[in-house]
C-alpha cells in the first residue's frame, strides 16, 4: 500500500524530467522497436552520464548517490510499516494531539529498534564484536555469485530469472559428488566444484539454446526451469541414492570433509567460497571490460540488431552468456552445499536465486556494484534472523525493503522527484524529438 501512495504522490513534478526520460528510452528501445534494456543506460558504457554541472551536482546526480537514497527511502518506508503495526505507536496515536511527543518517540523507537537489532545481527554488537559481520559475508557469498550471473546476463540484454534453478541443479550435483564419491583431499573439492558448475552451466545453456534457436523468451523458460529443477530435487531427495541411510526425511548425507570449502576464520561459518566470490567478481569485471567476448556481450545487450550488423554472432553470444550466467549462479549453489550448509535439503537454494535478481539490479549490473549489493542483502538476511528473535519483527520486512530499494532504483526519475534532484535543463536547444536519433546513433556507433 505504501508504494502505491508513494507513486501516486509523485506524479506531478514529472514534466521536468521528460527530457531525461526521452533520451534514456530512446537508447533503451532503439526508437521503440526493441524491448527496453534492463541495464540502466549509463552503466552500459561506463559513462557517468551527467558530465555537466558542478562537481557536487555530479556526485548528487550519479547513480551511486541515487542508489544510496533509494536504500534510505526504502528503509524509512519499511520502518513506517513496522511502526504501523506497533502497539505502543497505536496507543500513543490515540492522544496524538494532546501529547505529540509521546507519539513521535514511540514512532522513533519502533522504527529504530528493529533496525538496531538488524545491525547488531549483521555487523557489530557489543557482545560479540564484529563476529556477525563474518556471518553476513557467509550469507552474502551465494548471493554475490548468483547476482553476478544475473548481472552478466543483464549486460547482454537477457533476463535471467533462472538463478534459482541453476543453484538447485548445481547444488544437487555438487552435493552428490560430495557425499557419494570418496576422493583424495584437494581433488575431491575440485571435482565437486567442477560438477556443480557444469550442471549450472548446462541448466543455463538450455535457456540460451532455446532462445537462440527458437526465439523462446528467456523469462518464461527460466521461470519454468526453476520449477522443473525444484521438483527434480524433491524427487531425488526421495530416492535411496540421495537419502541418508536409515532416515526417511528428505535430507542427504553430510558431504565428506574433503569435499567442503575450508573455513577461513575458526569459530565462524565463513569459508573459502567467499574468496572465490571475490575472484569471480574480478573475473566478471575483466570479462566485461577487458575482453573481446565481454565487449560482444555488451554490444548484444545494447542493441542486438546493431551488434549483428557489426558482425557479432548474436545466437552464439546468447548461448555463451546464459551458460556463463548459469556457471556463476552454480558457484552460489556450490558455496551453499560445500560451504555453508554441508548437506543437501529441499530448501538448499532458499530465496537466493530471487534475491540475486534484486542484488544485480541494486548493483546496476556492474560486477563490483553487485558485490557490494550482495554484501548489503547478505547483511539484511543475516541480521533479520537476529531481529526476529529480539524484537519479533517478521523476517518478511527484509523482502519489503529489498523490493522497495529495487523499485526506487529502477525508476531514477521517481527518486529524483522525491528529493527534487532534477537535472539542469542542459538540452534546451535540442528538442526531445532529436534526442532519440542522437542516442540511437550513439548506440550503433558503440557497437562497431
Amino acid at each position, binding site marked *: 500500500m505504501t508504494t502505491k501512495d508513494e507513486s501516486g504522490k509523485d506524479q506531478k513534478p514529472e514534466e521536468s524530467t521528460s527530457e531525461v526520460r526521452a533520451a534514456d528510452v530512446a537508447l533503451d528501445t532503439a526508437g521503440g522497436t526493441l524491448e527496453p534494456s534492463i541495464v540502466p543506460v549509463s552503466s552500459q558504457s561506463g559513462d557517468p552520464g551527467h558530465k555537466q554541472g558542478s562537481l557536487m551536482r555530479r556526485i548528487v546526480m550519479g547513480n551511486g548517490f541515487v542508489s544510496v537514497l533509494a536504500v534510505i527511502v526504502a528503509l524509512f518506508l519499511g520502518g513506517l510499516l513496522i511502526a504501523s503495526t506497533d502497539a505502543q505507536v497505536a496507543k500513543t496515536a490515540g492522544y496524538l494531539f494532546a501529547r505529540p511527543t509521546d507519539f513521535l518517540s514511540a514512532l522513533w523507537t519502533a522504527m529504530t529498534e528493529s533496525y538496531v537489532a538488524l545491525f547488531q545481527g549483521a555487523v557489530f554488537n557489543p557482545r560479540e564484536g564484529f563476529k556477525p559481520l563474518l556471518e553476513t559475508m557467509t550469507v552474502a557469498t551465494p548471493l554475490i555469485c548468483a547476482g553476478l550471473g544475473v548481472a552478466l546476463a543483464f549486460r547482454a540484454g537477457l533476463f535471467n530469472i533462472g538463478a534459482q534453478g541453476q543453484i538447485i541443479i548445481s547444488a544437487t550435483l555438487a552435493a552428490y559428488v560430495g557425499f557419494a564419491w570418496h576422493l583424495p583431499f584437494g581433488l575431491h573439492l575440485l571435482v565437486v566444484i567442477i560438477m556443480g558448475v557444469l550442471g549450472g552451466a548446462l541448466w543455463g545453456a538450455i535457456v540460451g539454446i532455446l532462445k537462440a*534457436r527458437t526465439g523462446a523468451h528467456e523469462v518464461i523458460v527460466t521461470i519454468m526451469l526453476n*520449477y522443473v529443477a525444484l521438483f527434480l530435487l524433491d524427487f531425488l531427495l526421495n530416492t535411496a541414492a540421495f537419502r541418508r541411510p536409515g532416515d526417511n526425511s528428505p535430507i542427504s548425507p553430510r558431504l565428506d570433509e574433503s569435499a567442503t570449502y575450508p573455513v577461513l576464520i575458526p569459530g565462524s561459518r565463513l569459508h573459502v567460497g567467499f574468496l572465490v566470490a571475490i575472484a569471480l567478481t574480478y573475473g566478471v569485471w575483466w570479462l566485461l571490460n577487458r575482453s573481446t567476448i565481454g565487449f560482444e556481450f555488451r554490444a548484444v545487450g545494447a542493441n542486438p540488431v546493431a551488434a549483428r550488423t557489426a558482425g557479432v554472432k548474436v545466437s552464439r553470444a546468447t548461448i555463451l552468456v546464459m551458460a556463463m550466467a548459469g556457471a556463476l549462479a552454480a558457484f552460489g549453489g556450490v558455496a551453499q552445499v560445500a560451504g555453508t550448509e554441508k548437506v543437501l535439503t529441499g530448501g538448499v537454494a532458499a530465496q537466493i536465486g530471487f534475491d540475486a535478481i534484486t542484488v544485480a539490479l541494486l548493483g546496476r549490473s556492474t560486477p563490483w556494484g553487485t558485490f557490494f549489493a550482495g554484501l548489503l542483502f547478505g547483511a539484511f538476511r543475516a541480521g533479520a534472523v537476529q531481529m526476529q528473535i529480539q524484537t519479533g519483527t517478521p523476517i518478511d520486512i527484509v523482502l519489503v525493503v529489498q*523490493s522497495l530499494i529495487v523499485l526506487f532504483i529502477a525508476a531514477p526519475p521517481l527518486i529524483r522527484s522525491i528529493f527534487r534532484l532534477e537535472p539542469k535543463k542542459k538540452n534546451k536547444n535540442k528538442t526531445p524529438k532529436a534526442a532519440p536519433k542522437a542516442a540511437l546513433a550513439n548506440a550503433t556507433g558503440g557497437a562497431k
Partner: protein
Amino acid sequence: MSATTTAPKSGSTALPAFRPSMKVPLSLGILALIALVFFGFLGPDKTAEMKISDAGDAVAVPALMIPGQVGGIVLGILLLAMAAYSIYLWTQGERSPKWLPIAFAVVFVFALLVWIVAGARQPSISLAGLVAGSVTLAVPLVFGSLSGVLCERVGVVNIAIEGQLLGGAFTAALVATMTGSPYIGLIAAAAAGAAVSMVLAVFSIKYLVNQIIVGVVLNVLVSGLTGFLYGTLMVPNKEQFNTPGRLDILPIPLLSDIPIIGPILFEQSIAGYLMYIAVAVVWFGLFKTRWGLRVRAVGEHPQAADTLGINVNATRFWNVTLGGAIAGIGGAVFTLVTIDSFTKDISGGRGFIALAALIFGRWNPIGAFLASLLFGFAYNLQSILGIIGTPVPSQFMAMLPYLVTIFAVAGLVGKSRPPAASGIPYVKG
C-alpha cells in the same frame, strides 16, 4: 487458403512453394508412438475402473472398466490415426485444423490416465471427483491467466500475477474477517489486485521501468508485505483478522443433479460462476467489440493505434488495472473457497502456472481457460497419484505444466506468438 499457395501436386519431385511448419504433425506423431508403446504394448495388464457417478446420485451410470494394455493399444492407435491425418494434411500443404491438437491432447491425457490408474495399487478412481477437483484447482489459475491475457494483449507483460493473486488472497481474508462478510472480502480482493496492478502500470507506463523487473519485484514486495502483516496481525489475533468464513455454495436446482457436469458447472460458489462469466466476457470483449479491437491494436502496433486517436497509455493503464482486479478475485478463491484462512505465500507459485497457461493458451481467453483446466487437472492428478499409489513419482506430474510450457514457447507444440508490442513501453513522438 492453401489452394492458392500450394504448387501442383502432380509430381512428387516438385516441392510445393509453401509448406506449413511440420512441427505439429511431427510432434503429434512422436507423442502417438510414445503412447502406443508405453501405454499400450508396455502397459499394465490390470483393469482400470473409472467411476462416473457416485453412489448417492439420482442417475446411476455404470463405471467404465478399461483393461490397461488393450485400452492403451486402442487409444494409441486412435492417436496414431490423428497424427497420420495431420501428416497427410501436411503433405497436402495444409495446416492441421485447430480442433486436432485439442482432441489429440484429450485422448492422450485419457490414455495417460488409464495407464496410471491401471498400474496403481488400487486401480480405481472416481472420474467425476477427478474432474470436479481439477476445476476447483483451476479456478484461481483461470482468473490469473485472464489477468495476463488482458495485460499482454494491451502490451504490458504481467509477471506480477503471483503478487496479484497473493494480494487478493490476503485482502480477502482480512476484509472478510473484519466486516464479517465474505462477499465484501471478494470485492476488497479485486481492489487489492487492482492496486498491485496499478503499481505495475505506473512504473512501467509512467516511469518506463522494464515491465519484467517491476513484475518480479512486485511479487517479492507483495510476498513480503503480506508475510509481514500475517506475522504481526494475523498470527497473534487469528479471531480478529483471519477467520473469513467461506463463500456459500449456490447450487442451481435441477441442473446440478446432472451426473459429472452438474456438480462441476452448476454447484459452485459465486467465484466459480464469476469465472465462467469472466472467460466469456473477456473473450467477447476482446474479439467482438470496439473496445477489444482498440485493446488489441494497442498491443500489436501502438503507433498505428495512436495515429487513429486511441490514447495508448490510458488504454494500457486501465486494462492492466482491470486485469489486476480479475486476478485479485482469483486470489480470494484461496482464502474464501478452498480453505478459510490465510497462510504465508498461500498462492504457492500458482501465479506462474497461470502465466504458463496464458502462453500455452496462446494469449486467448478460451485457450487460457482450457490450459488452466489442463494444469488444474495435472495438479489434481498429482495428489490423487499419491493416494492410489502409482509407480509414477508425483513430482513428475507436478513438473508437467512447466515442461509443457517450455515446449510451447519453443514452438514444438504449435506456434505461440505474443502480441507484437508486449513488453515495449510506448513513448509518443
